[in-house]
């Protein structure tokens, strides 16, 4: 008996984001573990590997954030170097992709190409690099070169940087890299032959015009902020539509937005859990700090459970009050007016308002409902999958892997075994110049 043929569904790709150093990560919960001990990284990586995830993802920040001139102390602070941790995970995992974020501003192509090639060799072809640009002079105070890079050329440097890393990865086959560009002047052969994946997987996260073009030109995976259905579809169509200009096919790029998941035994249970998590994520002190970022001044005298301030924001103060974090708004006064109107209309306290305005698209419901939401988004081209950001270290994805992954597999949209040994196999993205050669057959 032959199996009935079912139409092949678009396959979902999943990543696990190690909880970070922002307010998504809850540290006050009794089950919250260490953000720095190796055992925490191993637990989350092994959970992701058990769930057949494509990759494990680490973020980066090269200076501790500051608020009102002091180190910000309300969120998790402190983490190890990404490549060092990923390399430590290489020997205790077998198939999981290992993705690390590294700045193109505070590294050099020769050295970074070597570090990622080393990770690719040590992991047998599982390395991925999320290239970010960090132009701020605040971070530059920790580095030799300081913060000289003007904002408008950061994508130019990033593109040149990526081109050079690729040239170093190829250099044993194509000869010494001799290039003088706007940002670099190098002449060398890399220290390593071609690594197992040819080039490690390239991840990009930019959302501006320049960032979207960089992703369309170079990225194998885009880590976006557009996890909702409508904004996801718009972003997906826009970025994949840009690829033809760079001579690339849409399926050579997987768009994987950051997403959070809250599971419950019923829909009501999941909603109640989500509300509880939001209260943990936005502490009374955290609500005031979020408000201060918009108002640009000290609001510590205000009651987080009381109404919003009557006074207007200090626009200049708002731009400077928090350092080391991407500012999410451009006009403080109009944003403050919108928030005040919203708080008045719905009778919200400061903390309630901050919870409302900072809540992001979340998959929330029973395991079957969450699987339906993710599957629908992927089938309808709102994404190719998601990088899941758990709110707890290190057990935050245990339930997802145990309860949602089987649901996705039942729907025929998620793998039941590994696609091959390397991250390129899991993602289904061949090296652009080194696609597998067909086996020669006689006659």
């Amino acid at each position, binding site marked *: 008996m032959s199996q009935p043929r079912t139409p092949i569904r678009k396959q979902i790709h999943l990543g696990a984001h190690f909880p970070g150093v922002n307010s998504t990560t809850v540290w006050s919960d009794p089950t919250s573990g260490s953000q720095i001990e190796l055992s925490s990284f191993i637990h989350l990586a092994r959970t992701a590997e058990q769930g057949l995830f494509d990759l494990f993802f680490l973020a980066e920040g090269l200076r*501790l954030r500051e608020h009102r001139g002091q180190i910000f*102390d309300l969120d998790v602070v402190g983490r*190890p170097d990404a490549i060092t941790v990923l390399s430590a995970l290489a020997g205790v995992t077998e198939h999981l992709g290992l993705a690390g974020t590294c700045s193109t501003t505070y590294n050099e192509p020769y050295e970074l190409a070597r*570090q990622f090639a*080393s990770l690719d060799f040590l992991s047998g072809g599982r390395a991925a690099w999320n290239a970010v640009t960090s132009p701020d002079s605040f971070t530059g105070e920790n580095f030799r070169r300081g913060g000289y890079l003007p904002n408008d050329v950061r994508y130019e440097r990033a593109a040149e940087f990526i081109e050079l890393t690729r040239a170093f990865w190829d250099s044993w086959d194509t000869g010494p890299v001799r290039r003088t560009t706007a940002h670099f002047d190098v002449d*060398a052969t890399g*220290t390593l*032959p071609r690594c197992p994946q040819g080039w490690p997987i390239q991840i990009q996260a930019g959302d501006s015009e320049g960032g979207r073009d960089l992703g369309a030109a170079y990225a194998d995976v885009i880590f976006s902020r557009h996890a909702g259905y409508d904004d996801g579809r718009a972003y997906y169509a826009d970025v994949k539509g840009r690829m033809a200009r760079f001579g690339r096919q849409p399926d050579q790029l997987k768009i994987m937005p950051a997403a959070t998941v809250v599971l419950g035994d019923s829909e009501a249970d999941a909603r109640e859990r989500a509300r509880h998590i939001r209260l943990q994520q936005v502490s009374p*002190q955290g609500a005031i700090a979020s408000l201060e970022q918009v108002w640009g001044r000290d609001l510590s005298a205000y009651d987080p459970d009381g109404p919003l301030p009557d006074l207007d924001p200090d626009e200049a103060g708002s731009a400077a009050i928090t350092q080391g974090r991407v500012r999410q708004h451009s006009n403080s006064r109009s944003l403050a007016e919108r928030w005040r109107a919203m708080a008045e209309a719905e009778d919200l306290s400061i903390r309630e308002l901050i919870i409302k305005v900072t809540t992001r698209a979340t998959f929330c419901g029973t395991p079957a409902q969450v699987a339906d939401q993710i599957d629908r988004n992927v089938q309808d081209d709102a994404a190719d999958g998601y990088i899941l950001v758990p709110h707890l270290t290190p057990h935050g994805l245990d339930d997802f892997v145990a309860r949602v992954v089987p649901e996705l597999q039942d729907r025929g949209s998620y793998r039941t075994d590994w696609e091959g040994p390397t991250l390129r196999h899991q993602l289904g993205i061949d090296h652009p110049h080194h696609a597998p050669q067909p086996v020669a057959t006689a006659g």
Partner: protein
Amino acid sequence: MTDPDRQAGPAVRSLRLALELSGAGSHPAAGRHQAPAGVDPSTLLSLGYTLGIAQAAEAAGFDLLVLDDSLAPADEPLEASSGRLDALTVAAALGPLTRTIGLAPVVTTTHTEPFHVAKNLQSLDWVSRGRAGWKPAVSSTAAEARAFGRKDPAPPAELWAEAADVVAVARRLWDSWEDDAIIRHAPTGRFLDRTKLHYIDFAGERFSVRGPSITPRSPQAQPPILIELDDSAPATAWRLAAREADLVVLRGPDPDAVRGLRADLDRLLATEPRRGPAPAVLAALHVLLDTAEATAAERLRALDASAEAAGLALPPTATATHVGSGAELAAAFSRWRAAVDLDGFLLRPAVAPVDLAAFAAAVTPLLPHPALHPTLQADPPPTLRDRFGWARPANRFSPGTATTATLESPVR
């Protein structure tokens, strides 16, 4: 001599042993001989190869595995055996897969960012649960400078002065978080007590670094620093070793030469400002041992012939080389230690897996086996500092920790 271990016998009860791994081995033809005489070059870049060495060295009683490295670009001929992985990344992969051996990568200071160097070594200390070490090195060639294109090559004296600045930055960043900075205090919403984090505000002639580290203080707080010296090392390297090294490796052709180097070091140790105890001092030795298949002399002839046939330069004679049996090596340890005040040796195996196996078979049984020592069987196992008997240092930024102006001044 009042050290009870040294009074106890001719050899080696307090003997410290480090193994330095450089690709297939220290002989230039090490990667050209197939097993059992050599190393299959196609395996050299796999985790399995280095892991095999690390686990064998741990089992054979070595205190420390040093992973050689350099940022020198690859040169013709490009062969599998000339590929070189980033040593710190390799050390990190070994962290969870080994238990007690120290892991000290070479990390260079010339073209790298001091902030990354410091933070990556701290991270290695976290992933090895307190077994990180660091062997600083400089990049003096024009080829390395061209690979970065950011600055011109400079003479070693200047590069080691810069290395001293990088060490100064690292030591400060490593202390930039006090141990109890993370408080998780729910009533005030504070994860962190920020009064226990410190800007280092290092401003030298070559660069400045603000701090604090992005990484919390690591299990050892200050991973041990190992500096290798010979009679051609510049004064800036010697001063850095006298001030900051936890382990000093002396490299000379014979015990007499190394005794002279030891005297030079002692003179500097008497005058240079320094925190903490005197460094442990090791002598560097190339080793090529008898195996079941061939004598050491036969192996050397074959390796030399192979190198000659390939047009490779033969190993320099400036480092002492032991070619012979394991028992003779154990006797050589005693002879050297009778001639020079040494805590032990850093061995460079000619063909790493072959000579390490020969060492384990012939030398380890002659030494009191540290793996049987109760402290190494404890759970959790000791840190590298514990293993050398060095206390976890007090934090230089904590209130009550004494500092002096001399100690804070950079090496010139």
